[in-house]
């Protein structure tokens, strides 16, 4: 039995359904991210785990105890809010010690635990400041310490870094992960930033429109997206529509130009429309020898992104792009120029059709 277990959880508000058929099993100590676009139901799911929303149907278990209808103040769950939600009338130390005070712990115990937490977030010298005297990053650290001080069994973080600027975001997310590892606490982390999810998580739950699209390790999610949505939302895959020419050999056509997949398309029939994903990093320009597939198109845009240069190419209907490592001697094509790009068979992935069942775990 998994440590945290969401079983067929569904939540609807009035008419609209925010979360549907949510099945997830999280092991003890695991770090799982919910990733998805705005409004896809990440916060709603998290709030059901915390007890701020009651599922319309389904069941939530922590350590084999059904907590579906437990009030939030009786759940062994700590939450870190996007807005920090520090109590403005309390100093940092009192904020961190609040949960312990509510639990009627002794003064000494509270003091030593607060001290420990302050050390954990490297903010010893800020104990006697008010929240308004702290920067956003510091406030979020205090919020984390406050949630951890009561030693919850599950830690929930709802886009904890989205209000911070890029630099501190990267630093703090690593800090959060380090603390999580050290305490071994089961963690759910909500984000709509795919880089954050990929770099932090043991597993990622990709969501769209209230449903789970795919659950998997960052490696699986990135390299083997199972739906067009995952392919386009995670990483920077090109999702192209293709027509099956010969399922047994994996021959397909994109805008009339034929390419080969690495494997046969079992289950597909000739003439069927399928979606394939094309990795931008395995495509290269004309001159390079590698790659058995080739496509011809017109360069539409060239974007300089620092270490890489992103080139957009238009086929007849489709637009796709690929990345080239930047080097001073790079000879770039001109906009409007016709180019031929090459890529290996393996760079081309078959994505399940959109209407098929979302992949479970």
């Amino acid at each position: 039995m998994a440590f945290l277990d969401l079983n067929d959880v569904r939540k609807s508000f009035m008419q609209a359904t925010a979360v549907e058929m949510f099945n997830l099993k999280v092991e003890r100590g695991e770090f799982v991210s919910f990733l998805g676009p705005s409004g896809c139901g990440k916060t709603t799911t998290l709030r059901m785990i915390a007890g701020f929303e009651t599922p319309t149907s389904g069941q939530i278990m922590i350590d084999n105890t059904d907590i579906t209808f437990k009030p939030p103040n009786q759940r062994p769950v700590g939450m870190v809010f996007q807005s920090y939600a520090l109590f403005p009338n309390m100093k940092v130390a009192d904020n961190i010690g609040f949960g312990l005070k509510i639990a009627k712990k002794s003064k000494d115990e509270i003091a030593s635990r607060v001290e420990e937490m302050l050390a954990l977030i490297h903010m010893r010298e800020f104990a006697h400041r008010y929240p308004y005297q702290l920067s956003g990053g510091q406030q979020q650290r205090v919020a984390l310490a406050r949630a951890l001080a009561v030693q919850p069994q599950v830690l929930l973080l709802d886009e904890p870094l989205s209000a911070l600027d890029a630099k501190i975001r990267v630093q703090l997310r690593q800090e959060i992960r380090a603390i999580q590892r050290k305490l071994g606490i089961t963690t759910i982390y909500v984000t709509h930033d795919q880089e954050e999810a990929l770099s932090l998580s043991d597993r990622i739950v990709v969501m769209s429109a209230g449903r789970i699209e795919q659950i998997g390790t960052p490696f699986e999610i990135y390299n083997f997206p199972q739906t067009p949505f995952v392919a386009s939302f995670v990483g920077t895959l090109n999702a192209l529509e293709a027509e099956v020419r010969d399922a047994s050999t994996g021959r397909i056509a994109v805008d009339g130009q034929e390419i080969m997949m690495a494997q046969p398309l079992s289950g597909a029939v000739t003439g069927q429309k399928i979606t394939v994903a094309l990795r931008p990093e395995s495509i290269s320009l004309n001159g390079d020898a590698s790659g058995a597939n080739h496509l011809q198109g017109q360069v539409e845009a060239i974007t300089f992104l620092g270490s890489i240069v992103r080139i957009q190419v238009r086929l007849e209907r489709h637009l796709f792009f690929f990345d080239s490592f930047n080097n001073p001697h790079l000879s770039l094509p001109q906009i409007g120029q016709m180019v031929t790009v090459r890529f290996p068979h393996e760079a081309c992935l078959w994505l399940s059709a959109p209407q098929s069942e979302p992949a479970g775990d």
Partner: protein
Amino acid sequence: MTEANLAHGGRTTLTVNRGRRFSWVWLGVAPFFLFAIAFLILPSAYLVVGSVQDADQNFTLQNFGDVFQPVIVNSYWLSIQISVVTAVAGGVLGFFLAYAAVLGGLPKFVRTGLMTFSGVASNFAGVPLAFAFIATLGRTGFVTALLRTLFGLEIYDAGFNLYSFLGLSLTYMYFQFPLMVLIIAPALDGLKRDWREASENLGATSWEYWRYIALPILLPSLLGTMILLFGNAFGAYATAFALTGGTFNLATILIGRQIRGEVLQNPGLGYAVALGMVIIMGLSIFVYSWLQRRTERWLR
């Protein structure tokens, strides 16, 4: 000497520079200052000066000693009592009404209705308010008669009197609690849902949330607004005058009679009484804005 010159010279340059840059600004606010001097500062200053002069316009502090005669002390005491009672009662009532309307989960029209009513009621003061209460709760008032016919209840026999402390307090309450509603409703709006949820998440009950978080956050606003209500009642004249015909010995009524030349017979003492009011009002406004700033600092 040199240093002084230097400093002086430095300052002059500064003034000249500023003078040039800011002259239009000063010209813009000049009418306001002239007006304020003529109709706010001068009259107030006159009271200050008058209060330290005797009948022959010699300097004296005698008036401040004389302020402690029973008639004056009693009038102040009565004013303070009625202001404190109506401020606290109105404050508590207004707070719970606003709480019910803002956080009570009632339909939105309840809130709109309460706010509109409060806007009207807090501004419906003075003579017409007194008349309205006489017409409803006076000896021959509508509600008095209604209670008599419906329940056989004779409120005036039961000890109620509109022209007493209780009656005047009741009348003041009509503008006191709506004022509280108007000021505290936005403060209640300012309580973030996240605070409540964070506290629940940490194990707190609803009561503990109010005890440790909501009330401490609201406390400065609550106290501040009550102080505002205090000042509001303390400075009121027309309502009390119209209700009791000037027989009720409030500080404002006393000053009114002094203006008419009916009491005290000592102009300087009259000024001292008026000055005392200004000092009390000033103190309450000072405490109010101090508390207000405190809240703003937290909630930035």
